[in-house]
């Protein structure tokens, strides 16, 4: 299987552990990831706030490059990129004004976007293309006894994703169960982490993050699994400030791909586990114990 791959700015910066774990996991499953040549920033939420037509032109360049490369699917791991690229596709289809602006812009660079490339999240590709059966076969170190809070964040499942429910998604739950982990009931799985505010209005952003962490701890989770680089940074990097305000809620946050890598028995170094502020270790003591089935 061959996929085109759009990393997005975060996966080259703060979220590089995501890329560093995603690529070996995909390779291990026999999927080839070809990074899109000369991709540019998707524009994220910030550009939309300034000018939505230009934001769409900016995002459409990536879609056009992917089409030029003949890509059927463009794997987009960052939730913000995933949303913006999908939204742009919808806008081009629905709005004549935006379609015209995009055609003008792309035309000036000799590019065109016909909407033939699907923007896909790796979670969707892993579970719905590659399949849980194939993944299960690769599991050599089941995550026995590990209690995981599945955190999807806001932007990936809404409003354009078609692969899961916007309020109660379950794709990652099923994946984690396949890896042998225990998924805790986590009603905040799609609540906003406040990442876009933590940098600008820390008091507000931190509180949103705190609620997510506290609830994960309260539900007895050992770790939070995320699918978005902004969520991971937000849930991982601000423990000091949060604990100063509201007391300890220490829990590590990792990418779901890192947990996959562990279950596949890939070397820890390859999985960039050292890049987190709050270190994650498999609860080895627990793993050794005979785990009683939980109800």
């Amino acid at each position, binding site marked *: 299987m061959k996929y085109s791959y759009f990393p997005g700015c975060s996966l080259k910066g703060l979220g*590089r552990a995501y890329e560093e774990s995603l690529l070996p996991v995909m390779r291990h499953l026999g999927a080839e990831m070809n990074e899109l040549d000369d991709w540019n920033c998707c524009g994220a939420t910030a550009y939309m*706030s300034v000018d939505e*037509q230009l934001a769409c032109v900016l995002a459409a*360049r990536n879609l056009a490059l992917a089409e030029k490369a003949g890509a059927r699917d463009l794997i987009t791991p960052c939730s913000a990129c995933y949303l913006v690229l999908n939204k742009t596709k919808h806008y081009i289809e*629905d709005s004549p004004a*935006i379609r015209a602006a995009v055609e003008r812009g792309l035309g000036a660079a000799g590019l065109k976007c016909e909407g033939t490339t699907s923007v896909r999240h790796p979670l969707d590709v892993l579970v719905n293309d590659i399949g849980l059966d194939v993944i299960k076969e690769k599991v050599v170190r089941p995550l026995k006894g590990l209690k995981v809070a599945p955190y999807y964040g806001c932007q990936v499942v*809404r409003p354009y994703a078609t692969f899961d429910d916007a309020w109660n998604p379950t794709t990652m739950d099923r994946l984690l169960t396949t890896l042998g982990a225990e998924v805790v009931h986590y009603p905040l799985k799609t609540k906003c982490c406040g990442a*876009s*505010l933590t940098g600008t*209005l820390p008091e507000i952003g931190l509180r949103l993050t705190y609620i997510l962490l506290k609830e994960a701890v309260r539900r007895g989770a050992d770790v939070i699994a995320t699918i978005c680089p902004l969520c991971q940074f937000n849930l991982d990097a601000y423990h000091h400030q949060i604990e100063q305000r509201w007391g300890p809620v220490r829990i590590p946050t990792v990418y779901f791909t890192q947990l996959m890598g562990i279950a596949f028995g890939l070397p820890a170094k390859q999985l960039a586990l050292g890049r987190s502020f709050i270190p994650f270790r498999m609860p080895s003591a627990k793993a050794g114990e005979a785990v009683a089935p939980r109800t």
Partner: protein
Amino acid sequence: MRITRTVKYEAERVRGFGREIMAVPGCETLLSCIQCGTCSGTCPLSVYMELSPRQVMALVRADFKDEVLRSNSIWLCASCYGCTVECPREIRITDIMYALKQRAIRDGVYPKRFPIPILAKEFTAMVRSKGRVTETLLVMRLFMKANLMAVLSSWRQGIGLIRTGRFVLKHERIQRRGELETMLAAAARDKEGS
């Protein structure tokens, strides 16, 4: 106790403002809003807003432009799209918020020292010149423009990033920057002309 007299006069309404917002793709559904408040109930930030998302919808529809554009509500929207997927009338509230942010920036009525619009502008500038965003550099620029104190209070994150090898000081950039500039210029120029 300060007593203020509040009454809204018809002259304060900017006729056509609601229609202008509803002309943005996906925003035309605002007409069917029944003011149920699901947006505010869902919104994680509504508790900080001067106007709840529901009130923003009501004011936009009633052409109260100033009240909406000057409120902090539109800048507190974190674009989580919760309201959009929850709205029983399928109103794209998040997109309306974007449309309002754009108008506020265009009209220069956003709160001056409020960091969110500054971030948006810095972000946009960086994308236009480099094609990509380097988060650490962006945040540093933001802090310098908006709030120097924040740099100091965030020293832990900075050190942490350096320790975990994520503090990037070199700009990420695309190769064909000229292509991007041509595209954006072409799209923007014709837009003005039309």
